[in-house]
């Protein structure tokens, strides 16, 4: 049974496309998940894993095949309107009112979400300022670049108070400054008690933002936990990098002889991914430092990317 304190509660959710046909696709396969209120949960997985299908079901865009899904205690199919009143969504694709100005985009969005005239004006001005859209406020969205359109789209969700926010690749196409503004805004909203479920391919973004991570592949949940627990799964993996003053052929040859899960050379930097169970990171670092004059070195533990690759049974690209 879904509890009211759970922002999102999914139980044995199944979605089958073209059911019974020769091209039947099981996009979600007995998927279960519970997200507590005020938490930021990252949904990670390769293309076609079922992330977008899950978001579409949770946002009432798509009917499920079986199982159940509740948002703030409301059934996504039987109480779809209550669910829609509890959520806001940033889609993967750009979704703006192309023929309206930036400020009219916020005005209409506010009207749809029942904001009063003063709220629309005050909150519209706030997000226009927060997302650096002052100079563009009277331009039609169709005349904006892709990055600016994305800003308008993302900024809208910060106008309203819906308790659950779904972000599908929200920062795609943004420059670093606006990406930072978005990440900060998302973190702030979570501090205010809003629940956020996001999908992203940017693992560093998930690492920075998320309280918990869910890995999904072929429609099934393959891993779930908080960031530290998840990263502990790849605790043996260590990245050692050294930047040389000059990367000579002799150094290159010597690097090739060091046992490593993966080695990468970029300009004068050597990056080795090693398994600490079979090789000491300190010994490897010492060997690398002895090869020639260096400018910098770094040893760091497993990243979310390492876990991602490990659980999917792939090496880093």
């Amino acid at each position, binding site marked *: 049974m879904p509890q009211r304190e759970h922002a999102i509660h999914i139980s044995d959710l199944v979605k089958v496309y073209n059911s019974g046909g020769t091209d039947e696709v099981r996009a979600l396969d007995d998927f279960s998940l519970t997200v507590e209120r005020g938490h930021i949960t990252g949904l990670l997985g390769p293309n076609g894993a079922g992330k977008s299908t899950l978001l579409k079901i949770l946002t009432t*865009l798509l009917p499920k095949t079986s199982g159940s899904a509740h948002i703030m205690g409301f059934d996504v199919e039987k109480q779809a*309107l209550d669910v829609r009143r509890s959520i806001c969504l940033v889609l993967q*694709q*750009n*979704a*703006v009112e192309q023929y309206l100005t930036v400020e*009219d985009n916020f005005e209409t969005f506010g009207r749809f*979400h*029942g904001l009063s005239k003063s709220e629309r004006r005050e909150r519209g001005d706030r997000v226009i300022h927060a997302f650096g859209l002052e100079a563009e406020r009277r331009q039609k969205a169709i005349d904006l670049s892709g990055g600016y359109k994305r800003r308008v789209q993302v900024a809208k969700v910060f106008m309203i108070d819906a308790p659950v926010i779904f972000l599908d690749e929200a920062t795609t196409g943004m420059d670093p400054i606006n990406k930072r503004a978005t990440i900060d805004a998302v973190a702030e909203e979570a501090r205010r008690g809003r629940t956020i479920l996001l999908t992203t391919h940017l693992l560093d973004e998930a690492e920075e933002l998320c309280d918990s991570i869910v890995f999904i592949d072929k429609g099934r949940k393959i891993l779930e936990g908080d960031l530290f627990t998840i990263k502990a799964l790849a605790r043996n993996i260590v990245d050692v990098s050294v930047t040389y003053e000059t990367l000579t052929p002799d150094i290159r040859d010597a690097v090739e002889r060091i046992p490593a899960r993966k080695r990468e050379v970029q300009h004068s930097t050597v990056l080795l991914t090693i398994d600490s169970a079979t090789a000491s990171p300190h010994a490897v670092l010492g060997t690398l430092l002895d090869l020639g004059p260096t400018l910098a070195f770094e040893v760091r533990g497993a990243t979310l990317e390492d876990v991602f690759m490990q659980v999917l049974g792939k090496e880093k690209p």
Partner: protein
Amino acid sequence: MRAHSPFRNVAAVMYREYKIRITSFTWLFYDLALPAFYLLLFGIGLNTAFTGGVAVGGAVISYNAFFLAGVLSMAGFGIAINTSYGFFVDRDNGIFYEFLTYPMTRGEFLFGKILFSLCITTVQSAITVAIGVAVLRVQISLPLLPLLFLANAVCTAGWFFCLSIFALRIRRNDLYNTVINVAYFVLMFASSIFFPLDNSPAWLKILAGANPLTWHTDILRYLSVGTGEANTVLLQCAAYAVFAVAVFIGGVRALRASA
């Protein structure tokens, strides 16, 4: 959580449509000005060519008087195309899917769009009729004027449902444009919009008789200049009502399946 208000949601949909139209010269031209241009151009051209007028159902009236109802139905059809094309554009832009997650029912969304179409059709009808009366001296039945506006609005809603099925089902822009242009061409010319059907070949009469755009035009012609048999027009009203209900069901199904 804010209380759910159907009125507020319908008003929000209408406000959005209004803002898109009012800030675009293209939309204003196609929705409001184009019918008047049609009427005036044909008034100058064909009305002088048919100096003896045209015979419709035993009566002889000026071409301008005949064509007024055709312009109104054609413009209603055009507004329905533009409004339903909005579905297509919205889906292409992605905003359509976002709409479906807003705190309103699918019915409120659809109703807001229809209500806006009815409003714009009424404004456009008033402009066209005013030009017909003031500039082209068309004599219309003033007591039936409200009914004329209402009939055009209701018939436009029917076309909106019909065309929405195509806008929601067809995924490719080029295919959608082809379908709509072919439909527009065939429906317009196989109807009573441009010429009386009395002396047309039998095959064209059959084709036009089964065309809802003919029913739409004949109803408006009866209400504007009084031509046609009352019984035939009543039958056409009934046929259009059946057509409207069928396309309404189809439109709602297409909207539900569109996500």
